[in-house]
Structure formats: C-alpha cells, structure tokens
C-alpha cells in the first residue's frame, strides 16, 4: 500500500507542464537617434523571425527644411548582405514634422540562428550622408529559446 502511494506521488513529476515558447528576436544595440546631415534618424526592430526582420525608422529634422531621400538600406547578417525590399519615397521634411518608414529585410532567419550569427550591421545611406547601426540578437543563450517556465 505504501509503495502504491509512493508511485502515485512520483507519477505527476513525469508529466511536467511547460510555459509558452519564447522566440529570439533582433534589436538595435544602441537606442539613441542618429544625426545624418540635417536628418535625425531613429529606429527599432518591430518584428523578426524566420522570414527576416522588419525595421521602423522615425525620421525628423531640427532644421527648417531638410530633404529626405534614402539611397541604400542594407543589412549585413554575419556576412550575408540583404537589401531592404523597397526604399521609401523621397520627401521634404520641415521642422517639427516626423515621418515613419517601414523597411522589411528578407533573409533566412532560421539559417542565421542555426549558424549562430547573432550580430548584424545595418547601413542606411541618404543623400545627406549615411549611418551604420549594430543589431544584436536579444537571446544571448540558445537554450533560452526553449526555457519554458510555466
């Protein structure tokens, strides 16, 4: 009888519950706006996954008038260079005006993850100059992707 009780106590430990999955994602290493000529450019990774990553740019100007014309948006994911799917239309920004631009970068997110490529570099070039941002994967330890605390 005592053995049966022991067995009943031991069995539930064989059926552990797990929490929902967490996913690795990309983020900017620095989160401060950058000045590129007369442009003030900020941005953040809004989505990332198997298909690549999507970045939102927030562009404004401290000047009275500043032309906004993007020439290059290129992501280097550990040696794999990817261009943004499309570049935004040119515009003229006035003081106090802000525009937001969405830039999708398609690449094999699974392959980058499986090959342990955790750092990326983003090059943004405008008519008024260019800047480079570093991106990192927010999941430093691969095991964390499967740590599922209920």
């Amino acid at each position, binding site marked *: 009888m005592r053995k049966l009780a022991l067995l009943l106590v031991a069995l539930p430990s064989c*059926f552990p519950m797990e929490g*929902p999955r967490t*996913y690795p994602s990309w983020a900017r290493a620095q989160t401060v706006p950058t000045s590129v000529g007369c442009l003030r450019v900020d941005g953040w990774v*809004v*989505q990332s*996954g*198997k298909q690549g990553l999507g970045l939102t740019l*927030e562009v404004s100007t401290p000047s009275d008038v500043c032309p906004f014309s993007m020439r290059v948006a290129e992501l280097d994911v550990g040696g794999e260079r990817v261009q943004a799917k499309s570049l935004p239309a040119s515009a003229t920004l006035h003081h106090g005006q802000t525009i*937001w631009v969405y830039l999708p970068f398609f690449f094999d997110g699974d392959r980058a993850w499986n090959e342990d490529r955790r750092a990326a570099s983003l090059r943004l070039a405008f008519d008024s100059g260019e800047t480079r941002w570093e991106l990192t994967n927010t999941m430093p330890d691969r095991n964390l992707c499967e740590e599922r605390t209920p």
Partner: protein
Amino acid sequence: MRRLLCFAPVLLVGCFVHTHRETNAPGNVELAKPPPDLTERTRIRPTDPGEQGVVVQGSLTLHGVGWTHVGQDGHEVFLPFMLELAPWTFTREKSHTNQISNEALDGAVRPAIGLALRVFPKSGNDTRTELGPMWYEVQYVSLDKDKFGGVMIGGGVTTTYKHIGPQATLCMGAPLVIQVCGRGAWTTDEHTTIQAFVTYNGFAEWVWSR
C-alpha cells in the same frame, strides 16, 4: 531482492526523457505586412511555427508466459525479459505546453523491433534458456478521448534466426504507462506460438521547432 527487481520497473513506468533541440528557434512573422501603427514602439510577437520531433518508446516485459511447440514438458515458456523499441516522428501545428507523448502517440504508425529471452521448463527443476525470437512489426496506436487509455495493434514477422514467420500483437491498457498484450506467431520450426505479457512503457522525446 527478487521482489525489488519485480517492483523496480513499475517505478520507471510512464517516465519520459524530454529534450528540446534548439534549431529553427525563430517564430513566424509577416514581414511584407507593415505594422498597423508605425508610430508605436512595440515589437510584434511572432506566431507559433509549430514543432516536430522524434519519439522512441521503450517497452519492457518482465512477466510473460507463452505456449509454443518447442517446449519439453507441456510446451510452456516463460518470458522473463523482452525489450521492444518503437521510434516514430511527428509534426504539430502548435508547440506543446504539456508533455507530448500522448498527443504524438495517438494515431501513430511506427516500426518496432524487439527481442525476447525465453525460458523453457524441462523435467524436474531443469530449464533451457535462449535468446530469441526477434520480431519486426508495424504498429498502430489509438488512444481514447482522454489520451490515456488505448490499444496498439501490430503485425510483422518473427524470427528464430534460422526460421521466420508472421506475427501479430494486440495490446490494451494505457500505452503511456502499462499494457496487457497478447501475441500470436507462426514459424516453420516452432509452428504456432501464443504469448501473454505485460509491458512497462517509457518514452524518450526530442522536439524542435518547425
């Protein structure tokens, strides 16, 4: 000691080795679709890509009896040890938050390979022990609504190394834990064999993202 050995497998019943592999960890995103509000500094949570995996079921038998033509006195045979391994793969649309063997087991069609140790009683206290037969089956498992009780049916071949023949197995009980089984086989040397036995089941699972 003998009682302890008899009881030991019961403690192992229904236990799992559950391992997450780390490949393909990113989730699914719709990159072509811009976020609904570009001004919001939020991160869109990826959707669950589902998962796939491999499960190996190990079935241990320590208590079985049989009847076969090769016995010396009355044809009885004792089955003090049988081990069977049955691996299969699975794919799921949603990642699990619970143990998955029961979900993966329901409806599984899988190969199985097994080996028995047989003891034939002879006159007096004398016995003859032999390793065999081996069997290869294709098995189908069906669980009931609560994913605990169920049946397993299998069909394949059995071999005494020199001879071969068809074999069929039916098990009932809780496939995740313990089952009562019956097996019939026919080989050219031993002719008809019938066995009844209890299996204690355990699982090793490897799961990774799709």
